[in-house]
């Protein structure tokens, strides 16, 4: 059997259970909507300002940095998985050292970028 079938089955089951839990009981409770109940939460007052969709620019910086480092991580995963396929011999040891040196160089480049981000204040929160 294809090992991905349980992934789909479990996803479907989790979706069903999640929907039943989240939406099912909505049919049980009373329904007496009123303007006050349906207003946005503001400590009991009418919200005076509409929420504009303007966000601190910090958050988009976090998103960009996350993308950068996440892509970098994707390159490390094959390196980790690759060890299992190597045997014990001398050539294999040479390959291991080569792999390690390559990853070191890769992370070295990354560190330069990381230091640049840090020095330019990309990681500061005010």
């Amino acid at each position, binding site marked *: *059997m294809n*090992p*991905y079938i*349980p*992934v789909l*089955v*479990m*996803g479907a*089951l*989790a*979706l069903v*259970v*999640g929907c039943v*839990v*989240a*939406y099912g*009981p*909505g049919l*049980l*409770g*009373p*329904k007496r909507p009123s303007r006050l*109940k*349906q*207003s*946005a*939460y*503001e400590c009991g007052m009418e*919200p005076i300002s509409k*929420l504009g969709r303007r*966000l*601190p620019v*910090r*958050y988009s910086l*976090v*998103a960009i*940095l*996350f993308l950068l480092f*996440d892509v970098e*991580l994707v390159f*490390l*995963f094959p*390196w*980790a*998985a*690759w*060890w*299992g*396929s190597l045997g014990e011999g001398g050539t294999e040891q040479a390959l*291991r050292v080569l*792999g*390690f040196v390559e*990853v*070191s160089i890769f*992370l070295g480049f*990354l*560190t330069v970028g990381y230091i640049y981000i840090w020095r330019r204040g990309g*990681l500061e*929160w*005010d």
Partner: protein
Amino acid sequence: MIEILIMLAKVIVATLFVVAGVVPVMIWAERRVVARLQQRYGPNRCGPLGLFQPFADAIKLAMKETIAPLSADRGLYLLAPALMAVPAFMGMLLIPYSIGPHGYVTRLSVGLLLVLAISSVQVYGLFLSGWSSNSKYPVMGSLRSAAQMVSYELSLATVALIPALLAGSLDMVEIVNNQRGGVLNWHAMHYFPLGLLPFVMMVIIAHAETNRSPFDLPEAESELVGGYHTEYSSMKFATFFMAEYAAMWNIAALTVALYLGGWGGPGVEDLYSSSPVLGFILGCAYFLIKTAAFMVFFVWVRGTLPRLRYDQLMSFGWKGLLPAALGVTLLMGALKTFLR
């Protein structure tokens, strides 16, 4: 045919175990343990030791009116709780819980990647819930928690990579099997005491990823009311809590599988060779005990540590954990290359 039935049974048991087993027990246990830590009694009226408290809570919440703000973005607002629940309830998909061919729901050669991928989907539910509420506190809460989870996810992926490196495989079953044969073979004990470094980081990240105290900024009651789920009521509100407890269990199970030997413990393999059923049950028991201990640790930390400030949280994640995690990865790679 039999194969499909066994698969279905495993999937159903694994899902319902989290939804109907872990979640109610954790709701009860968290309140009891925190009460003990704060020298109170905690729930003790519903049934023996207050054991029926979660069910009382669930029935009460289910009978409540569902209120949605008029300003909400209707479709996304309704979608968010389910989006949060689905990845959380799928958590046991790839974690090996016992010995033998029936000790896991499924095994994939890219298992660890899929575990990380599923757990990261939760950020969407969390962010959309606040965003679609279109109300101040939820938007702020969801922005904060999305940034927090995304930042710590980097360190999580790095630290989760180290056991894969030590085992030489991304298959969760292989990773657990690599830790067979006693405590000293656990990945947390590899290259003692260096293996403890990524393990401790993993424990810290587990708290940040599940928005638990001391990293529970998204829910900081004193500043953000309730954070991203302020505008949710009735069982939609409860769904977020269920998803959070399920996510705690998932990350605890992942930590146990990656660093604490999974189902491994004294006597499992001997018992399995003489009686597969008993060995299987003993393996399950060890797995459950380890994961449950981790869950109690979550509560203990919550009862002990004060909340961080948001800038402390972010600078700890970006300037402390991330470079440390990358450094430890490189160190482990070097040890594995040259020490053998």
